[in-house]
């Protein structure tokens, strides 16, 4: 049990921090280059080997490690030292509750592909997210610089505000799935539902004869189909929590130089930089699990895969094969969600600070409350009809 948890933790750390985070710094550069009609990062080389610019993350890390670590005069040394750690740790440990596969029975042993399968997984993510606010705040305050403290003020206000919306935006989702446990949520999405049943149950309408296929259409039981509005709000709020463009007002280099991490250099700056990218991976994992069925293959539930493959190769092999398929599916969905964030980041210009706040309190918050109300009414109305 302890060994299995250790192996899974090491695996997650390796995949997320060791592979994904550095690679997506490269993806981000290439994506921006593509969207701005440039060639992009392709110069860094080791003995002439560039592998389409993939040497850039390596060069970055070497540069950051070799740089002088400056602590400004008048800074609070302890808090200045602590702040990057407080940024990096929540980003990393949030991944513990995200399932990267289902649970599989090999005879008596059960393999579950998640580090911590806790009853309140979703709340755990929010709790970690609320602790993530300390890093930026302390970074700016401890640096003893005016630009830094402006960035900190913006960061703390933005993160507190969007935390509220973030929480409310997914209430509808766990009303639908009746669970806070992320593994159960993923299992619940491994099925399909008849899309028109909603209309029939609510309004008693039958599909018109010409559109008979519409009545029979089945969709995967994914969060995005059941709670589309929640997905948009969740995406907005969590991107604002991660403080990446278009919500990067705490860094806003044209107004406040670089915000809360101006006074950081070397690998301590590197921690801020990497945490943002780890945040992108965690967000992608959350969106995959909550709204895109997690590890599940659409229209092919776990039992069907195991039964189908098991007929030819035996149940043991089929279960292992299913585990692999689910893991690959999860990684593909994760990649798609990372790509979505990258595309948004390079499409939208930075909001003005007051626009960020207005969006949260005047648009998203009322909308998320309305979503909860409507979801509750629909669930009550459909109760018993199904």
């Amino acid at each position: 049990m302890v060994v299995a948890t250790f192996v899974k933790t090491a695996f997650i750390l390796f995949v997320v921090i060791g592979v994904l985070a550095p690679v997506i710094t490269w993806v981000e550069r290439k994506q921006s280059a593509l969207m701005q009609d440039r060639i992009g990062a392709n110069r860094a080389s080791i003995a002439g080997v560039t592998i389409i610019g993939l040497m850039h993350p390596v060069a970055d890390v070497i540069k950051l490690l070799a740089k002088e670590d400056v602590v400004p005069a008048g800074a609070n040394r302890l808090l200045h030292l602590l702040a990057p750690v407080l940024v990096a740790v929540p980003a990393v440990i949030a991944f513990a509750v995200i399932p990267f596969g289902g649970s599989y029975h090999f005879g008596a042993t059960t393999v579950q592909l998640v580090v911590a399968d806790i009853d309140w997984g979703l709340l755990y993510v929010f709790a970690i997210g609320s602790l993530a606010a300390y890093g930026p705040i302390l970074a700016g305050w401890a640096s003893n610089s005016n630009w830094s403290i402006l960035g900190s003020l913006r960061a703390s206000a933005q993160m507190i505000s969007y935390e509220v919306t973030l929480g409310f935006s997914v209430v509808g989702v766990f009303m639908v799935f009746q669970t806070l446990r992320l593994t159960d949520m993923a299992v619940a999405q491994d099925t399909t539902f008849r899309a028109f049943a909603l209309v029939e149950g609510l309004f008693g309408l039958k599909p018109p004869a010409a559109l008979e296929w519409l009545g029979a259409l089945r969709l995967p039981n994914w969060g995005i189909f059941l709670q589309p509005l929640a997905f948009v709000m969740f995406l907005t709020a969590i991107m604002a929590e991660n403080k990446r463009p278009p919500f990067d007002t705490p860094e806003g280099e044209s107004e406040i130089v670089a915000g809360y991490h101006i006074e950081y250099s070397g690998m301590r700056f590197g921690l801020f930089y990497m945490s943002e990218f780890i945040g992108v991976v965690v967000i992608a994992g959350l969106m995959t699990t909550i709204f895109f069925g997690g590890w599940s293959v659409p229209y092919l539930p776990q039992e069907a895969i195991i039964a189908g493959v098991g007929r030819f190769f035996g149940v043991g092999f089929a279960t292992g094969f299913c585990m692999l398929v689910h893991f690959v599916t999860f990684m593909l969905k994760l990649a798609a969600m990372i790509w979505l964030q990258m595309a948004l980041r390079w499409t939208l210009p930075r909001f003005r600070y007051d626009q960020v706040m207005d969006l949260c309190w005047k648009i998203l918050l009322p909308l998320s409350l309305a979503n909860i109300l409507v979801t509750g009414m629909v669930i009550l109305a459909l109760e018993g009809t199904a």
Partner: protein
Amino acid sequence: MNFPTLLFHAFALLAVAGAVGTVANLRNTVAAAMSLVLTMVSLAGIYVLLGAHIIAVFQIMVYGGAIVVLFLFAVMLRGDESEPLPRGRMRLVKAASVLVAVCVMAGFARILVGFPEPPAAPTDFGRARTVGIALYSDYVLLVEMVSLVLLAAIVGALVLAKRNTD
């Protein structure tokens, strides 16, 4: 000593250390606030050891996160150097804090001396579903009352903020 007991002692020690840090950091408000975070998070750890998971999560979300962040926000807006209270007020505050400390200590003494062994917790104790159902059935009136108090606080804050801008 088994592992949970060891964890309990670690969390208890951290909670007390954080509390001492909160009181001792008179000159540095931000350090005091961060010590408070340490206490809050350690208490959440103790709640987990007691099986009250959902309370632990709320402890971190509300006290560990939002509330102390707001403290820090206020400190950063106002600056760290607040003027000391006038002598009379200071003496009153000191007397009040001693009184509160004595009351809390008396409460603990009452618990430690001859408090009956609590019954074993049911298996679904502290689950999100159990707590949720309890909150919105047996204690629904209290929940609504608390939300009313919070609403009053919001309205009060708005009135104060409006008066300062006019």
